[in-house]
């Protein structure tokens, strides 16, 4: 136990707790709320896309003339949907929630290296997210220059953009502090016997993710400072000379470069997408090993691939900038690195797929989401290839094809993996079980409607429909044949939203159910399952801190009496 013997108030125990498990839950609950909110924004946008210039049902009275979504508001919803899903939703859930809760448990230690810093990280995230939402209520509405905030547009945009920049400063700071914590914890606090090559893949993934966040986020912070200077101090870092805005030449010094923003932004934003996927790889690995009752095929390949992926992610960013006028040699450089980075991704996915061979597969809810991840991420990854090739990208850049690609990796990709994690670790966090029927319904309907929303996007993109269009492409003749898909996608999106009700109801009734008393219902091998209670003891986690004697996935060891052998079991 901790040697703090002072009595804890409600505030120190639940609100300003320094216990990594409480903080993990705080991140988890907050991020799930923001994910739902971000999803709702998109459901509103999709009404405009399916039925252009029709009044939005339910909330139409709150917005615009006659309840029709104005185009500026559409742009705000779009920019904020991206921002919220990535920075307020997926990363805090994947890294802040799962990382904080389970990394200390998996490595066999009593808390993160810096508990007070951990609490600070969470509250900075909370404050940053509130600031982001405040943007909706200022004159001109929330940021509306895309989640990518490209100048010159973002430089001259309404007040909401300044709010976005301030929000990002808090969110980035939160991330940086969290990364330092995870890195020091994994390097310094591993239990006796927990060598690097005995770490569960989940922890490796969190460790590499932390490195990416540590080194990639600061240039975006620098860019944010520069954009704030442009907007508030009248500088021209991103403003070229002689810019005309609303018919008037801008009265500033000029000489700046919009491309500078793009470089600094994408220097972060490309590693950011690997931040989005690495924790998912980690969670899927845990769930697959557990539900095939056999070790992962190619543990070492997976680890080395993730490390290589992390490093490569820093040198591909300009594949987001192919059509900015780069010369062919630089374009070729980035195309080459982009093609190379697909290799570790393929190795990892193949490792996961081959891990199924010869397994005794249990098709419980977490496993269904983990299995669903594999082909969905496969589609996402494959559709990235034409985008990574500069010549094809000329046609596909900024079309719906891109939106389809990245949503496949993040939505039926990462988010499915996160659901797998929630269902998998729910018994550990609560001591209770989720309802399998509701879980399976959640999975099946989500799977169907995810594909319903995102598959047609490839068709529209190939036909040349641009992204970020308020009218969904109506104005363009080349889009005419594929416009009908807007309605298909919108209905899929709304039904996908409804399908989440299965999840919400499941959470509520499961939380209210009785504890089962089981400590390790899935028969897992990793320490968080085998050496802690469910939930683990507050402040201390372990009655006795375990030592580690074997690898993380010793399932079905020949000659063993059980079909799983815990990491902490001697011999």
């Amino acid at each position, binding site marked *: 136990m901790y040697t703090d013997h002072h009595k804890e108030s409600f505030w120190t125990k639940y609100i300003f707790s320094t216990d990594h498990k409480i903080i993990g839950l705080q991140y988890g609950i907050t991020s799930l709320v923001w994910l739902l909110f971000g999803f709702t924004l998109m459901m509103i946008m999709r009404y405009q896309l399916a039925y252009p210039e029709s009044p939005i049902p339910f909330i139409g009275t709150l917005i615009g003339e006659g309840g029709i979504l104005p185009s500026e508001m559409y742009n705000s919803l779009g920019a904020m949907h991206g921002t919220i899903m990535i920075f307020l939703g997926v990363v805090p859930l994947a890294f802040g929630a799962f990382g904080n809760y389970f990394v200390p448990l998996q490595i066999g230690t009593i808390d993160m290296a810096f508990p007070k810093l951990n609490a600070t990280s969470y509250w900075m995230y909370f404050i940053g997210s509130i600031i982001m939402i405040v943007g909706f209520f200022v004159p001109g509405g929330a940021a509306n220059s895309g989640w990518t905030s490209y100048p010159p547009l973002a430089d001259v945009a309404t007040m909401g953009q300044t709010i976005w920049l301030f929000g990002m400063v808090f969110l980035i700071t939160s991330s940086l502090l969290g990364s330092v914590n995870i890195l020091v914890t994994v390097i310094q606090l591993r239990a006796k016997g927990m060598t690097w090559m005995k770490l569960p893949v989940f922890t490796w993934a969190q460790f590499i993710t932390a490195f990416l966040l540590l080194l990639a986020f600061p240039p975006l912070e620098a860019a944010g400072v520069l954009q704030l200077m442009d907007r508030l101090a009248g500088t021209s870092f991103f403003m070229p000379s002689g810019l005309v805005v609303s018919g008037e030449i801008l009265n500033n010094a000029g000489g700046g470069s919009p491309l500078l923003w793009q470089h600094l932004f994408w220097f972060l934003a490309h590693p950011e997408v690997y931040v989005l996927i690495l924790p998912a790889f980690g969670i899927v690995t845990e769930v697959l090993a557990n539900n095939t009752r056999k070790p992962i095929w190619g543990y070492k390949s997976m680890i080395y691939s993730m490390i290589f992926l992390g490093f490569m992610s820093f*040198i591909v960013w300009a594949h987001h900038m192919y059509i900015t006028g780069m010369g062919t040699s630089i374009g070729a450089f980035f195309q080459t690195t982009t093609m190379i980075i697909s290799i570790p991704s393929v190795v990892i996915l193949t490792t996961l797929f081959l891990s199924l061979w010869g397994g005794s597969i249990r098709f419980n809810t977490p496993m269904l989401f983990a299995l669903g991840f594999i082909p969905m991420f496969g589609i996402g990854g494959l559709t990235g290839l034409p985008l990574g090739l500069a010549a094809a990208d000329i046609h596909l850049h900024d079309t719906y094809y891109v939106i389809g690609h990245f949503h496949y990796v993040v939505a039926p990709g990462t988010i499915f993996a996160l659901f797998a994690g929630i269902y998998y670790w729910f018994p550990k966090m609560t001591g209770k079980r989720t309802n399998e029927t509701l879980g399976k319904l959640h999975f099946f309907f989500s799977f169907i409607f995810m594909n319903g929303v995102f598959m047609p996007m490839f068709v529209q993109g190939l036909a040349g429909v641009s992204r970020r269009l308020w009218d969904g492409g109506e104005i363009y003749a080349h889009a005419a044949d594929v416009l009908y898909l807007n309605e298909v996608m919108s209905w899929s999106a709304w039904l996908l939203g409804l399908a989440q009700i299965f999840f919400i109801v499941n959470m509520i009734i499961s939380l209210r159910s009785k504890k089962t008393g089981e400590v390790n219902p899935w028969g897992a091998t990793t320490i968080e399952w085998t050496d802690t209670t469910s939930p683990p003891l507050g402040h201390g986690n372990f009655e006795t801190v375990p030592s580690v004697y074997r690898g993380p996935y010793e399932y079905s060891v020949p000659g063993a009496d059980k079909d799983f052998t815990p990491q902490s079991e001697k011999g």
Partner: protein
Amino acid sequence: MADLTPEEIKHHVKTYIIVFVALAFFTIVTVSISYLDLGVGASIALALIVATIKGSLVVCYFMHLIDERTTIYWTLLATAAMFFILMFVPLGTMLAQAKV
């Protein structure tokens, strides 16, 4: 660091003084060079070389990097790689721009 004897500390102190003198010297050098008209390339190169020498002295001796082990070295190596990528690749894209 925890187990340094007083003698070792006193030796370190001597090092700090020497480094301080070196830093002061190099400051004077770099300011003096700036008054010479050496052309853009040479000025930049010399200024950065002197700054790197000064910086290395601070990192190695004031920050004790010379006594630290591999963990810190690897972190700094990775950071240095990222720093140089960030410094030169965007420049590269600008210089290699397609001429219209």
